[in-house]
């Protein structure tokens, strides 16, 4: 395929092109990782390359990986920031185990990432970043570019700074400003290498730097210079092409898990006809949901940056008491702080959604790294008997559906609901087939208004939910509270039998949500087989890919991925018993495993990883293989 028309038009002029196009080699798939110093703009380059790839029609999945330090010392290993993109002409389930192309802007970025690059992988380095000082900061005793340690890779050494400087020289920018354009030079270069359409990038540069025309011009020139450099110099023998994937027709948007979560909540609020209220305290990796929602005021969306995690959830409970869709967002440490208030919401039976965007713990742990170790806290991390529905998103786009579903269930059953995502989903992105609002389920909110026969705890016969009677409604004045209360009237009660009845009623109400859960889908041998791999949350893509690969090798391996973790689907026990072995894969020490063993008395085994990094497909494959042999 030739260079896309708009690319040729924009970039062919004045480029000094030799006029002869280089050959283009077609490949099914690439995984590219951009790595550099935190200040090198690698996240931006990665995101823009993602946008180009989506527009090229590839199926994609991304994995940003950045340090917790906002500005770690330049050139150090701690300051390395990475962004990985898997783009393919085939269906994509994961951001890829390892990159086939690595872009390293300095020695530290090389050192942190080079072990992931397989032999013969493409390595693009900014040669000028390999100064003695930077080599020393990265802990190199000799220069890897000259000591033959990189001989097993296809190494392309580019003088990025020099080339960027000459591209923008006429603009008279200072060195610092010029250096900030280096990422666009590199982006231009890889855009050529993979024959990406470039309009999304040039549009981005124009809108992002609208207010600083010289910076806009510099970035534009750097980008085009990078693109033309690839085309005209001898360094690359050919470019690559990844053909569009077979993707269902429709309108797509590249979306991160956090944005999808925010939009799911807005959509649910719109569908319920109620305002959305988010009470939240900034915490990595959840803050983006607060940022996103604070921009949607006209829906209306209320966002309250509370004084602490407790006030975040407490304010959401207050808003729910008043009839709003009350939600709170946090990560593990914040969940602990919210626990008491969540117990109150359980007791007073008000709708509330608590989103835990899990990160590696305990304590501060690794805030920017994902983990799934909050499941048992979501299940049991409260005082007293306080069951809560738990729903977990499997992919970035699935965060939209799960957030929506969490609100729907919270309102229907008058209960807090916990939505579990994680740092991997939060910042990872994938194409999302944007739904039409009318396709989304209705969320029925019927406030009680009739004083005749009103009692605060008179339950719906089917759902066992109590009426939502909001202040401002004449004749329904009533009091609710954390003290044990009497069936129907809600008056304070210390009656032992009443207390047990209320505890059991609330538990039955939550267990009854199982009727909302669709039949569990078994990928593979529906009638049973050698091994069933069970997962939940962000491991979905990896587990599915591993099962696909193993089935291609003739292994009887199947996959069930749970969205509902409490209650568990009512057909799960039957399904589990159809398999000779059940393996539960999760990024913790075996939390769902414990639940499954306890609930179904099945001798399931675990596949676990607690490294703040997602499973690799190869890791899961080898664990499953061992289990099959064992």
């Amino acid at each position, binding site marked *: 395929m030739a260079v896309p028309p708009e690319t040729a038009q924009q970039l062919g002029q004045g480029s000094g092109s030799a006029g002869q196009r280089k050959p283009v080699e077609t490949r099914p798939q690439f995984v590219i990782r951009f790595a550099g110093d935190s200040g090198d703009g690698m996240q931006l380059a990665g995101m823009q390359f993602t946008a180009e790839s989506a527009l090229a029609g590839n199926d994609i999945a991304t994995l940003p990986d950045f340090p917790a330090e906002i500005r770690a010392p330049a050139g150090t290993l701690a300051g390395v920031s990475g962004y990985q993109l898997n783009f393919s002409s085939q269906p994509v389930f994961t951001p890829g185990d390892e990159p086939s192309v690595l872009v390293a802007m300095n020695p530290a970025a090389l050192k942190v990432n080079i072990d992931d690059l397989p032999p013969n992988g493409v390595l693009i380095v900014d040669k000028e970043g390999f100064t003695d000082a930077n080599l020393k900061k990265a802990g190199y005793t000799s220069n890897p570019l000259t000591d033959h340690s990189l001989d097993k890779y296809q190494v392309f050494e580019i003088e990025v700074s020099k080339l960027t400087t000459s591209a923008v020289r006429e603009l008279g920018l200072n060195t610092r400003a010029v250096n900030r354009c280096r990422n666009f030079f590199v982006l231009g270069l890889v855009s050529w290498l993979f024959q990406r359409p470039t309009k999304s990038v040039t549009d981005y540069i124009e809108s992002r730097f609208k207010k600083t025309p010289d910076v806009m011009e510099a970035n534009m020139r750097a980008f085009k210079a990078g693109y033309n450099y690839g085309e005209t110099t001898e360094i690359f023998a050919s470019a690559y092409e990844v053909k569009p994937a077979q993707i269902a027709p429709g309108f797509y948007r590249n979306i991160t898990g956090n944005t999808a979560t925010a939009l799911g909540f807005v959509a649910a609020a719109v569908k319920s006809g109620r305002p959305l209220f988010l009470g939240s305290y900034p915490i990595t990796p959840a803050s983006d949901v607060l940022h996103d929602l604070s921009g949607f*005021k006209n829906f209306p969306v209320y966002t309250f940056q509370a004084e602490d995690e*407790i006030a975040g959830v407490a304010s959401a409970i*207050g808003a729910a008491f008043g009839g709003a869709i009350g939600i709170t967002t946090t990560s593990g440490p914040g969940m602990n702080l919210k626990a008491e208030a969540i117990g109150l919401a359980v007791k007073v039976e008000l709708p509330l959604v608590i989103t835990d965007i899990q990160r590696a713990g305990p304590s501060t742990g690794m805030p920017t790294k994902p983990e799934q170790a909050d499941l048992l806290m979501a299940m049991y991390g409260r005082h007293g008997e306080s069951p809560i529905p738990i729903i977990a998103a499997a992919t970035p786009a699935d965060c939209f559906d799960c957030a929506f579903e969490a609100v729907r269930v919270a309102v229907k059953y008058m209960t807090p609901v916990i939505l579990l995502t994680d740092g991997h989903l939060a910042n990872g992105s994938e194409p999302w087939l944007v739904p039409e609002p009318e396709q989304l389920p209705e969320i029925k909110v019927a406030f009680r208004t009739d004083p005749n026969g009103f009692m605060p705890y008179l339950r719906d016969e089917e759902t066992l939910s109590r009426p939502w009677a909001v202040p401002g409604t004449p004749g329904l004045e009533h009091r609710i509270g954390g003290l044990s209360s009497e069936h129907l009237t809600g008056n304070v009660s210390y009656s032992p039998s009443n207390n047990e009845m209320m505890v059991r009623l609330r538990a039955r109400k939550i267990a009854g949500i199982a009727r909302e859960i669709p039949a569990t889908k078994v990928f593979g041998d529906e009638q049973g087989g050698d091994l069933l791999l069970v997962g939940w949350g962000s491991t979905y893509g990896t587990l599915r890919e591993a099962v696909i690969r193993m089935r291609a090798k003739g292994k009887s391996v199947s996959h069930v991925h749970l969205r509902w973790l409490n209650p568990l689907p009512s057909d799960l026990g039957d399904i589990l018993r159809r398999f000779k072995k059940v393996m539960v894969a999760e990024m913790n020490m075996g939390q769902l495993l414990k639940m499954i063993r306890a609930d179904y008395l099945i001798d399931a085994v675990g596949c676990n990883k607690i490294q703040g990094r997602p499973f690799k497909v190869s890791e899961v494959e080898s664990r499953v293989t061992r289990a099959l042999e064992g």
Partner: protein
Amino acid sequence: MATALTRKDFISDQEVRWCPGCGDYAILAQVQKIMPELGVPRENTVFISGIGCSSRFPYYMNTYGFHTIHGRAPAIATGLKMTRPELDVWVVTGDGDGLSIGGNHLIHALRRNIDLKILLFNNKIYGLTKGQYSPTSEVGKVTKSTPAGSVDFPFNPITVALGAHSSFIARSIDVEQKHLQDTLKRAHAHRGASFVEILQNCNIFNDGAFNDVSDKAIKADHQLILEHGKPLIFGKNRDKGIRMNGMRPEVVQLGNGVTDKDLLVHDETNLPLAFMLANFEPPMPTPIGVFYATSRPTYDSAVNAQLEHAKKTQGPGELRSLLRRGDTWSVK
């Protein structure tokens, strides 16, 4: 037209279960008494409390009520008031609930100036947990948890509120029926965070803690009633006053050439003056009344103004276009 409400309309059907003789009864009675005069429909009135003796309050009000968790009432009330600004939201708290476990929420509600009426019942003791010292207990206080006397320096609720720049700060006393009613009415009329410390006697665990200002026989010599624009005069015979001696206030005897004109005149809008009065300790008299009242935008109105502005400038939220923002493309 609906018939006018009376005090009885605000009494719930629940039996009041404070200890006999508790100061909370008097406060409940005064609140129920002023309610009909406020002109707010019963259904638009909400009482929110935390945990502690005082926090049982909402159960006894025939309005909407929410007995929440320890210290968090201001945060819960904030979420309600932001989204339902038309409601009249009262917070009932105590010295432990509001100044210890919930201190953070209290100061932030006050600094934001959210339109809540916050009543802090200060009895300088933990009553519900049966008698431990509280963050307002005096140094040396012997309690169940401080057998050798407390070494914990106390908070002064009024200076805490002043430090948080609450826009309305007052103090009253459980047994001062008229003064309490007037103070509550003023607090209600104020737009913004109204903070009222109510000195309240716990006759079980800290009986007589405020005797000097509540005992009819001696209170006149210890109470300094603050009235805006009026000289600071007190005493059984109204013959004592507060005068500035350089930078320091002092008590002076009126007469012998000392007149009203020599005395400090109360000004509710003067923040430094309010700080000075709030720090009066014996032998200075204890001020009651409004220390400070100022007008500044309320948090709930500012938040809702932003929402209205967004709606006006961007139009009402439209879901379809919201979902279709960002990096998008069509697959045919």
